[in-house]
């Protein structure tokens, strides 16, 4: 029997993603984004994102099928992000996936967005070594997970107690007059800066702090205060240095906690996913620290780190292979779906 052909839908935020996977092989990854429409608001506006998902849905499915060189009737199973994310946005994808599953008479899997960020790495680097530690960092989430079995056993170790890592990048970019989303422009600006120029705080790194939780709100405020003080003194703001020092503070905490989680849990594999995993400094520092600690690091290519449909298809394929029961006919969206619910 040939490996299952899985169509995956992702609409949890501002990217309409439809991806196609056969087994663990990536066939296509069609994406439409409403990101530019949110730029002037400094963050994703849920209603704008939801309207864009509806408009983009059918054309994006067509692109995914065409690029994958298959017909809709070839699809063996459908997977869709059912949470966490923005409710109105999630529901467009869930409704579309349910309709395709009904029309094509194939099973439907409602999956967890975070687990899908882990699963996507298998499309590039093969089967995960389980257990693995996973760190997911994006504009919507910052989590450390222990993954004994990606198809059915994902355990939360820690998460952000305030802002997501990517959110801090967006807010600091705004303070520095850089465009939204803030990750790529800060990454670029930081290349010409000195990461040691300013000592920004490392949140939740004290001996009594929760070892796997994150906090980026204080860091964001510290950056804003520092920039304001400069401006009040009539001095120019060294954007490259601020960007580099801020970025260093974020990736220092992220990588230190991820490596500590591996050590504490006795796990020698780490996978990093989510939009912030596209950050060049995070990738370099994570590699250095993993090498020093004897940990095997896996990070998907930048294209697959950010939200996309292929990651959902990849997890769906895993579920089919593991013989997990498909979702019930009454599948809906859950904006705060707990991370330990891989599928529902």
């Amino acid at each position: 029997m040939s490996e299952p052909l899985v169509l995956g839908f992702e609409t949890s935020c501002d990217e309409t993603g439809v991806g196609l996977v056969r087994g663990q092989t990536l066939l296509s990854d069609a994406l439409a984004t409403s990101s530019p429409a949110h730029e002037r608001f400094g963050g994703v506006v849920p209603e704008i994102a939801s309207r864009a998902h509806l408009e983009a849905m059918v054309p994006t499915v067509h692109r995914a099928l065409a690029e994958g060189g298959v017909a809709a009737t070839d699809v063996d199973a459908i997977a869709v992000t059912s949470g966490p994310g923005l409710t109105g946005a999630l529901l467009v994808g869930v409704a579309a996936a349910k309709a395709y599953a009904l029309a094509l008479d194939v099973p439907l899997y409602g999956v967890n967005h975070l687990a899908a960020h882990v699963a996507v790495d298998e499309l590039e680097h093969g089967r995960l070594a389980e257990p693995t530690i996973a760190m997911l960092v994006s504009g919507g989430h910052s989590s450390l997970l222990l993954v004994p079995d990606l198809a059915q056993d994902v355990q939360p170790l820690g998460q952000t107690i305030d802002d997501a890592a990517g959110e801090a990048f967006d807010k600091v970019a705004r303070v520095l007059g850089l465009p939204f989303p803030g990750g790529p422009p800060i990454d670029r600006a930081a290349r010409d800066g000195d990461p040691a120029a300013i000592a920004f705080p490392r949140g939740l790194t004290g001996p009594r702090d929760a070892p796997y939780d994150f906090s980026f709100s204080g860091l964001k405020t510290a950056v804003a205060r520092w920039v304001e003080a400069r401006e009040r003194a009539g001095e120019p703001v060294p954007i490259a240095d601020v960007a580099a020092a801020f970025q260093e503070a974020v990736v220092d905490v992220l990588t230190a906690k991820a490596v500590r989680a591996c050590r504490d849990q006795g796990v020698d594999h780490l996978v990093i996913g989510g939009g912030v995993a596209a950050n060049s400094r995070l990738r370099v520092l994570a590699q250095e620290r993993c090498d020093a600690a004897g940990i095997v690091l896996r990070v998907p290519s930048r294209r697959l780190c950010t939200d996309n449909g292929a990651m959902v298809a990849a997890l769906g394929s895993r579920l089919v292979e593991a013989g997990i029961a498909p979702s019930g006919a009454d599948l809906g969206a859950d904006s705060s779906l707990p991370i330990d619910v891989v599928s529902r």
Partner: protein
Amino acid sequence: MPEQRQLLWFVVLVLALDTATPTLVVGLARWAPGAAAEVLAERSVASGNRHAELLTPTIRAVLAGAGAAMADLGAVVTGLGPGPYTGLRVGVVTAATLADARGLPVVGVCSLDAIGAGLRTVVTDARRKEVYWARYGADGIRLAGPAVDRPADLSPTPPVVGDAAFGARLGVEVAPAEVTTAGLLRAAAPQLADPASAAPLVPLYLRRPDAVPPPLRKAVSQP
């Protein structure tokens, strides 16, 4: 008689659905140009904000109830609202994708057109203490609307049908009425007769998204 012959060949099974109001409506009808649709099965579900959960199971139940299969369908009709956006989109995207997967024509209609019949004003809940409304002549043709307004700013021409909860605020009696399959088919008839003329499936939002650009930068420290 080539025209009659064409009519005989032009009988299609139409799946109709609407999620513009708290009542989810799914129906199956036999339709031919120039004739009233024959509703074979219909379900109205007081679904509230659970349209996404209940829509496809309801479609399945309606098809099963009529002894029909997906493969028997010839067209899909959906209400385009106006209605609360999140629920409304569930119906519109379901109709669009279902039709796409089966290679069927899909037709969108104003949901208010499918509530009541003949001379009337239709009102439904637009939330935020406002109503969606439209006014129709004796021939059932829409004369005004769809629009969204505060009840206090409207003086609707009786008879008024739709969401009876707004009677007091409108100062008129509102006869309770909901979207029906027959109403959806009636509104869709011109487009069903010529599917190539069907407009793109764009919901009748009537309001812009609530979003205000933030100030350029918020001061965090006191000077």
